[in-house]
């Protein structure tokens, strides 16, 4: 680890060479785009640890840009302007995300930023956007701590994590009234930690005993010790947060060590198909919450008038099902379209105020920003894996299965 640590910066600078080559190519191609366009910059994790998430953002943004340009572009005042999306790979390294955000603003002169995956990296990119007063739309950052920095130019399409905890405690207590205690194990990282702390608070407020609550550090490759302690605490509900690889390992070790509970929740595991594929039958019964599910039936403005229209388009393009990352990021573009139409100009301050006043319906659901720039709370889907498929348990309007106990 030590030697690897020393060489992290070496890896960074060597990789920077590759980026520079890419940037040069982009710069050479730039003069071809002579007519006025709306430029959106996106530092993306296309390689490295967050590559999967980065590619999800990439695919829907490209879909959206194609659709909007095919329709003539975005209306700004009396002109219709085409959209140009400029993406750079920041290789999942926060430091580089910040450098590339600066480059996008200073060299490429982007008018908007799309922030990358995760609360941590969003915080970094939003800081740069704020400095240059470039509106930044974050589609995969839900930790309120990111929006607590009084950033005036940051807006997020996910609603606060809080919406996922209180409602879940209430729902599970209704379905399993004998639930008395919860064990919480969370990854020590911005989002998973805030969810772990949020659920413990919500559970206590809801009258449950928190029988175990610990965080595990990034890089943990064995959960046996924590799980053995959880087993000794005999909770009715086990709640684990982390990235997909952590959760797959934790579930596997729960099985190995014979640990179970009537309710097992993993966040955000089942929201991703990688989780159910990686676990196979072991995924069955695991519940979770999500910000969006393609079974929802929203209607509204934008290139996709309904959730179904987006789903069909996405399915045709990728052969897979979209998850909340796809939904939220595709909707981020609509925020810009709507704000520009109302602002009638590209003036930074006007556009920023127009975004703050957003109140629209989209295929992804309503988007209306609170005072901190986050999308307002709404009922978020509670999901469960049943026979290898994702079922929606709540809210009642889109429910397609009843909750089952862990097999």
């Amino acid at each position, binding site marked *: 680890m030590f030697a690897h640590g020393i060489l992290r910066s070496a890896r960074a600078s060597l990789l920077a060479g590759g980026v520079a080559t890419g940037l040069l190519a982009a710069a050479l191609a730039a003069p071809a785009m002579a007519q006025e366009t709306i430029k959106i910059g996106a530092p993306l994790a296309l390689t490295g640890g967050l590559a999967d998430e980065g590619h999800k953002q990439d695919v829907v943004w490209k879909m959206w840009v194609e659709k909007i340009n095919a329709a003539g572009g975005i209306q700004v005042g009396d002109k219709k302007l085409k959209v140009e999306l400029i993406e750079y790979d920041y290789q999942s390294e926060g430091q580089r995300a910040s450098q590339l955000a600066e480059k996008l603003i200073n060299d490429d002169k982007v008018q908007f930023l799309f922030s990358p995956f995760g609360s941590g990296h969003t915080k970094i990119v939003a800081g740069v956007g704020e400095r240059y007063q470039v509106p930044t739309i974050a589609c995969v950052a839900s930790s309120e701590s990111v929006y607590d920095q009084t950033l005036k130019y940051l807006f997020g399409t996910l609603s606060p994590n809080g919406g996922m905890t209180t409602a879940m405690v209430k729902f599970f207590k209704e379905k399993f009234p004998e639930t008395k205690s919860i064990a919480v194990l969370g990854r020590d990282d911005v989002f998973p930690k805030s969810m772990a702390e949020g659920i413990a608070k919500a559970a206590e407020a809801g009258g449950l005993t928190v029988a175990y609550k610990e965080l595990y550090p990034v890089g943990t490759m064995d959960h046996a010790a924590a799980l053995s302690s959880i087993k000794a605490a005999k909770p009715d509900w086990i709640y684990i947060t982390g990235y997909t690889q952590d959760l797959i390992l934790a579930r596997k070790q729960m099985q190995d060590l014979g640990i179970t509970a009537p309710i097992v929740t993993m966040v955000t595991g089942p929201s991703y198909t990688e989780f159910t594929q990686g676990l196979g039958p*072991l995924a069955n019964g695991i519940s979770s919450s999500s910000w969006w599910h393609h079974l929802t039936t929203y209607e509204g403005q934008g290139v996709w008038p309904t959730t179904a229209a987006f789903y069909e388009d996405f399915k045709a393009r990728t052969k897979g099902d979209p998850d909340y990352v796809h939904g939220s990021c595709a909707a981020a573009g609509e925020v810009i379209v709507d704000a520009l139409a109302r602002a009638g100009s590209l003036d930074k301050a006007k556009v920023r105020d127009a975004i703050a006043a957003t109140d629209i319906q989209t295929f992804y659901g309503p988007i209306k920003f609170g005072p901190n720039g986050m999308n307002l709370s709404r009922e978020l889907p509670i999901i469960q894996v049943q026979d290898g498929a994702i079922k929606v348990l709540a809210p009642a309007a889109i429910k397609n299965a009843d909750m089952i106990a862990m097999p």
Partner: protein
Amino acid sequence: MAIYLQILSNGLMLGALYACLAVGFSLVWGVLNVINMLHGSFIILGGYLTFFAWHLYGIHPVVMLPIVAALMFALGFTLQKLVINRVVSAPVLTTLTLTFGLDMILYNAMTYWFTATPRRITLDLGAVHLGSVVLPVDRLIGTGLALAMTLLLYAVMRGSTIGRAIVAVRMDRSAAELMGIRTDRIYAITFGIGALMAGVAGVVFATVFPITTNVTGIWLGKAFVVCVVGGLGSVPGALVGGLVLGLVESFAGHWFGPQQAITAGFVLMLVLLLTRPTGLVGVRGYE
């Protein structure tokens, strides 16, 4: 009491897996004086080979074990022969930088081909119950394999001509050359064995841990700690280091919470570096 027995067995099984991943790393470091930054990626490559053979063609990981071992040996041998041998007698920083560069190529190529999606062989073998202690079968197999590989390596180093030649080169390269040993070839074989051991660890890990390029650095770091704890220059060093690290992490996780488990491993490493730089069973002169 029951929980302590469980934590003890968790620690021993985890430790054996750590030993399994570090044996090859320790050998290459001890003999070639090369800190092989590729080691973590080699493990994951072995894991991917196993995963795809199972996922696409239904080949059982046990069948893949010798195949992966042979392929990884060939890869390691070729790399050493064609690339690393050119700088092998240069200071350690040069070889470190070289293997680091090679690691970047392999790591990024794997991320590009396989993506970073965590994959797992869903071949759940169940668990053995000994009273209140639960022993997962795949980890038991991993433990057995780690012990077997270490013993095998020990036997090869002690009893075979190649093994004696490797030991001779480790002791004194010039003298070994004068005795007619082709050191370039011995280096290539040693590096091949190192890669082979990493590949075998990858096969075992594919059934126990999710396989993703995200964790190459973590495994490399563990190999490093195991070697420092156990000591270089002796085959049992990796085994002792692995078991001690597994036990320390396991008990620290229980007593101080999972957040401190990894820290405890590094604290142990620091204490040993200060008090016993040769590691627990290392040979003087290789620290």
